[in-house]
């Protein structure tokens, strides 16, 4: 069971109040891009064992979208942050590094750090 804190309304609720929106910070490949890029954008997703960035929606609460950084193995939540960013904010990355010193940042949307 995940406990998520919505950065929009401040409510901390359990996961059934929210909806998972899949991997975060995808770069969109639309018309005019190569078939391979378009296919990857549509269908290929990371499935890491460990640190993962996701989009979530506070479906039964304020209704807003936001981001979650969490560990897929331990279900630890590193933090939640606003929806309108293309890469995770520094304080979230710092939190992850303090909890997972060996983690090599492959920041989605932002290349490697």
């Amino acid at each position, binding site marked *: 069971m995940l406990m998520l804190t919505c950065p929009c309304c*401040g*409510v901390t609720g*359990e996961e059934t109040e929210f909806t998972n929106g899949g991997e975060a910070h995808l770069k969109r490949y639309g018309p005019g891009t190569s078939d391979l890029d378009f296919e990857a954008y549509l269908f290929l997703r990371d499935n890491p064992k460990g640190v993962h960035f996701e989009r979530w929606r506070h479906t039964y609460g304020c209704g807003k979208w936001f981001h979650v950084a969490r560990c897929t193995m331990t279900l630890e939540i590193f933090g939640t942050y606003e929806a309108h960013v293309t890469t995770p904010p520094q304080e979230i990355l710092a939190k992850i590094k303090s909890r997972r010193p060996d983690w090599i940042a492959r920041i989605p949307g932002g290349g490697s750090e």
Partner: protein
Amino acid sequence: MILMGRSRMSEAVSALDGLVWDQGIARIEEVGPQGMITLRGDLGSGTIKDLATGVTSVDMPGQSEANCVADRGICWMSPDELLILCSYEDVAMNLQRIQKGLGDAHALAVDVSEARATFRISGDHVREVLAKLVPVDLSTEAFKDGMFRRTRMAQVPAAFWMCNDHMVQIVCFRSHAQYVFDLLKTAAAPGSEVNLL
């Protein structure tokens, strides 16, 4: 500015026509008709605050709070949405007042009275009756007077607040009214006290 009104051609009847159930560990009552206006816009704007407090005569609530007196009140729904409660008869007048006050502001005011159902549950066990149905900590330390919570009630969306220590008010979609009433009846079944909260 978008505004939608209702025609007043027929007598208003709430979802369950004021159904009451009083045979369990809490009294369950469908309340209605209750006037409700959704007001969306920049909640930091003085105009929106003034309009909300003006038509309800209650103070502006903080984040995740509700200020309600009898059938009037303001509920904080999200960073850009308020639910204005007023008497059913005053909705058209208040909506007009809000529309006029908003002017060209980027905002939305809609009469949602007919889209919702309202319940009050009362008695010594209200907290635990509700706690059986929502994924929310309803202990007195965690859920306090004045707090307003949108969440799910079993399988449908609902919002609630404590009117006082022995009464909870619940708002849900009108089409879910019977479902919510039945849920509450089950949660308040005779002999189902948990005596935890």
